[in-house]
């Protein structure tokens, strides 16, 4: 089985309003063509790097539509902006996660991971026993103002050791990024995004082990088949591959994992 831990809807920046889920059909067709059984939807986050409450609701409503229409193909994360009002954040987490409809939280670039405004979200993640997936990248150029790098994720992870979190974009963080979070047992790393750059995955296998790596593609920014090819390129087969392609994500999802 292949459960892609990092996907977005076909129109990354334009969540369909009042969707019945049928706009996910091109994504499902591509999943079928590439052998992807299930996908974790992270939402049309491209709507804004610093989303308002209204934009957050739009994104999450669209994700919920996908989950309703295709419950056997999708799970979903609740997109949040830690800069928003604490009451709204709590309300949205309860609406999406507390209700049992989503399995965790997605955070992007609105606020840096070190910012204490994350604490209300992560405390609630611990209470709800849900996972967190956080964008991170070591960038020389094109870094957005508050974008987190793996050292920021390490700081957050140590502040909340009881929250299971995925640091996204292994190749974006590079070997340095793997090293940054190696000593944080509550941090997994997804292999999504970036070109199929050789060497980092091998380093991660040797440093943190297959049990803390998850397959993700960052579709539609990237291609399912090419991103899966990273596992082939690193020579990952058998139990390690099963762990990476579905087993570890189920661990992350905890009691919220699909049957």
């Amino acid at each position: 089985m292949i459960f892609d831990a990092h996907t977005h809807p076909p129109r990354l920046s334009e969540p369909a309003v009042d969707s019945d889920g049928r706009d996910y059909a091109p994504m499902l067709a591509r999943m079928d063509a590439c052998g992807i059984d299930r996908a974790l939807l992270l939402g049309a986050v491209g709507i804004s790097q610093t989303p308002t409450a209204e934009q957050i609701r739009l994104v999450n409503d669209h994700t919920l539509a996908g989950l309703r229409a295709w419950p056997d193909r999708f799970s979903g994360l609740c997109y949040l902006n830690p800069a928003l009002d604490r009451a709204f954040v709590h309300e949205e987490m309860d609406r999406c996660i507390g209700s049992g409809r989503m399995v965790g939280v997605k955070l992007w670039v609105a606020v840096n991971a070190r910012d204490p405004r994350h604490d209300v979200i992560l405390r609630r993640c611990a209470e709800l026993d849900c996972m967190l997936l956080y964008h991170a990248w070591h960038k020389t150029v094109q870094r957005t103002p508050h974008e987190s790098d793996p050292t920021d994720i390490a700081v957050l992870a140590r502040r909340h050791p009881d929250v299971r979190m995925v640091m996204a974009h292994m190749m974006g963080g590079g070997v340095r990024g793997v090293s940054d979070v190696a000593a944080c047992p509550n941090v997994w790393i997804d292999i999504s995004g970036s070109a199929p750059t050789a060497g980092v995955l091998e380093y991660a296998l040797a440093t943190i082990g297959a049990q803390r790596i998850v397959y993700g593609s960052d579709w539609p920014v990237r291609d399912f088949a090419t991103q899966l090819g990273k596992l082939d390129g690193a020579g990952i087969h058998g139990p390690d591959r099963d762990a990476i392609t579905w087993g570890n994500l189920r661990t992350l999802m905890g009691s919220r994992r699909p049957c």
Partner: protein
Amino acid sequence: MLIDINTHAGRWPFLQSGPTEPAALEDELRAAGITRAMVSAIESVLAPHPSIEEQRLHPRLSDFFSHAPLISPMLFDWRDRLRQARDEFGATTIRLLPSYHRYEADGDEAAALVEAAAELNLHVAVLVRIEDERAHYPLMAVPAPTEAALLKLADRLAPRPLILLNAYRWELPAFADRPHVCFDLPYLESEHPFASITAIVPPSRLLFASHAPLMYPIAQRRKLDHGELSDADRAAVAAGNAIRLGLVSG
């Protein structure tokens, strides 16, 4: 048949990368189903005299490889190196790297070199980049040549082909109406790679490549295999276009 037009021998110092020695690189490429590969010395990117590294590489190459040496027009002996490429290395193609070798793609030096290459019946490929700029070593942020500069170079070469290696998908539209400009695959990726690429340029202008050992060749193979191209288009991208252009023999 699967021809890889973009591989490198040697170690790129800023990445862990795959196999660095030609023999091991060949093994990895063959394991991915690749039957022939064009190669240059990765050390020639940063070496004070790039052609010396190409000269060191050549005796270590098996017949699996077609040597496509990196040549800089900033070298005093670049004309000799062009002749060496054709006569000693048996090259059909030379590679240019304006960004790291510090000349303008639309400048006089590049113009003189491509003109001389044409006289020697050598094709020209430009490495637009070695790495994603976001991953550049902080003290070595090397911007890629501008689209305008590459367009000017392309127009100088026309109608002879210009191969752009490691272009991004969003760089393709600028060259859509230059039918002699072709692209390789390593940095062309999206939700449905070939559907989005062939909306801009036809399959006849696409060339399979891996950018090994910096990238996994098998991942690029997967991109091609799941690209939902027709059999004819797949065969063209896989090898036919490279043969038709004369980059390698069939």
